[in-house]
């Protein structure tokens, strides 16, 4: 197989694993084994995986509450993610974060942020730090279309631009906030890309469901960033397969639109590309099966893991590991 086929196959596998992990999260939520809330990223896989394959392991990634795909793309295991959702001691955050706060520091996936837009300035700060330390690391902030109307977006883009920082702003434009269409509340057709010129930041609007396009666009932006040329805005158009959160049936989306996007599933797109590169259906099938197995094992392991340790409630506030507020 060509290098490109091998890499695409690896990306395909990661997308397949994410898809199945999200499905598992959904099913476990329905079964009452995942509590609180979840915001699933099925349909968004190509954004996380394409970006991840364009980045170095030491680059920084910041995500939103819809961040399972980014955690996995940066190396967190499906098991640790599901265990976190199931409030297990083996969860990514020991059961203290939950679905909305998946974090995987070993992969420099530095958190999932549940206040819309909050992580954009934080990512700018990581990029500033990389610049100060001279490491040529890049920071990437993934955010939704809805985040483009909050103040932090504006401040982050301006600061990144004037300081020419190595940060990439990747908008996962799935056309909806929670239940409201982004177009109905935004004075721009492309909520992120159309605003980028106001900060002298170059922008690209891309098919966020084509993992190759995402990878190449992020790679280019990362190269610019490492060359000291500053930030880039990438607006990756995509679509969520589930509703906004939990069991939202997403009735507010026109059936025709849903159908069109389901036909443009990022996994199908990648499969078609693989086939075009001559990868056999059997090879793809074996990958699918491996993904099935990985996630099935993850579900099992997470289910069987011990519950979060209640003593952890009072740890990890301070760097010394504790939570003492008085002396």
């Amino acid at each position, binding site marked *: 197989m060509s290098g490109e086929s091998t890499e695409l196959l690896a990306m395909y596998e990661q997308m397949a694993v994410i898809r199945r992990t999200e499905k598992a999260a959904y099913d476990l939520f329905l079964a009452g084994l995942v*509590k*609180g*809330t979840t915001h699933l990223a099925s349909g968004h896989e190509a954004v996380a995986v394409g970006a991840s394959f364009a980045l170095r392991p030491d680059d920084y990634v910041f995500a939103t509450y819809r961040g399972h795909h980014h955690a996995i793309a940066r190396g967190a295991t499906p098991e640790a993610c599901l265990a*976190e959702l199931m*409030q297990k001691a083996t969860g990514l*955050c020991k*059961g*203290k*974060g*939950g679905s*909305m*706060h998946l974090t995987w520091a070993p992969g420099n996936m530095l958190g999932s*942020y*549940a*206040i*819309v*837009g*909050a992580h954009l300035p934080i990512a700018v700060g990581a990029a500033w730090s990389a610049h100060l330390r001279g490491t040529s690391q890049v920071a990437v902030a993934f955010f939704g279309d*809805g*985040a483009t*109307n*909050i*103040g*932090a977006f504006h401040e982050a883009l301006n600061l990144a631009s004037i300081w020419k920082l190595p940060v990439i702003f990747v908008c996962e434009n799935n056309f909806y*906030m*929670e*239940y*409201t269409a982004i177009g*109905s*509340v*935004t004075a721009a057709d492309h909520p992120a890309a159309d605003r980028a010129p106001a900060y002298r930041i170059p922008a690209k609007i891309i098919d966020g469901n084509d993992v190759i396009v995402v990878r190449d666009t992020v790679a280019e932006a990362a190269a610019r960033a490492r060359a000291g040329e500053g930030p880039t805005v990438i607006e990756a158009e995509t679509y969520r397969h589930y509703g906004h959160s939990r069991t939202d049936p997403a009735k*507010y989306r026109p059936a025709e639109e849903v159908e069109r996007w389901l036909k443009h599933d990022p996994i199908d797109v990648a499969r078609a590309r693989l086939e075009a590169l001559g990868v056999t259906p059997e090879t793809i099938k074996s990958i699918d099966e491996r993904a099935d197995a990985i996630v099935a094992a993850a579900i099992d392991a997470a289910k069987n893991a011990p*519950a*979060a340790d*209640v003593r*952890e*409630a*009072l740890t990890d*506030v301070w760097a010394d590991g504790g*939570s003492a*507020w008085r002396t």
Partner: protein
Amino acid sequence: MAETEIITYREAVAEGIAREMRRDPTVVCLGEDIAAAEGVFKTTVGLLKEFGPRRVWDTPISEQAIVGAAMGAAMTGMRPVAEIMFSDFFAVCWDYVANEIPKARYMTGGQVTVPLVLRTANGGGLGFGAQHSQAVENWALTIPGLKIVAPSTPADVIGLMAASIRSDDPVIFCEHKGLFASKGPKPPEGHVVELGKANIVREGSDVTIVALAATVPTALTAAERLAAEGVSAEVIDLRCLIPMDLTTVLTSVGKTSRLITVEENPHQGGWGATLVSVVVDEGFQLLDAPVKRVASENVPLPFADTLEEAVIPTVDKVVAAVKAVVNF
């Protein structure tokens, strides 16, 4: 009959708003997903349908613009009711809540008034994690110039919503997420609960337990358990932090000589501290025992249910605190 109709706390929110919108055409609502989607907590169900898009507005994710616009409208003849979806998000528009809205009247020597309501889903217990579970009524308490309301029953939601919307002062209206599914009688039309009147929800003689919003049912359950053990607890639903009904509290402590507060706020900076500090000043001689505050631990709110329960007030913790002061 209207009197015996049962309604959820969640439905009471929409009902309370609707009643005022019918009365007063200057009442308008704005917020994220409140119109077409009828609210992510379904607390604005029916409003768009009844009152139309000129009175019920979906906004972008722009909390500063939402609350700032509410303020500008309130200064110019409207009575906006703005929703901040989760109370944690007050942090992204805190300037309006802390520096603009509560100070405008004072700074201008009384030239402007800001009659608005900022409604929000407040509090924990649902496993939403550190950024979606906080009880932030104590943030507002640090800011003079805000009225702060936190009802515990559907009837109070409606009665206090009426008083809040009619108030010429800005009101922070905390709807507790943990109570949305709870039920109670639907009050008759015209039901108004004056701001600053605590409610003695259970009479007792051994100890006064002051609670608010979701800690009221916690306190009541604890009181029942204590009754079985021969301890008679008086439970006060404070209803509002500002105005704070200290008359009712001090009167009760005069009777019981013992005081417990039950707060969802973290212990550091929680509302009970202010209340207790007044009681130990003005009511020092009334007290026969240490005052205990059952509050959340001083940590962010964890996601896992068991951990969250370890952090926030529970019936067990209230019972233990009461026993400690009663056995003092």
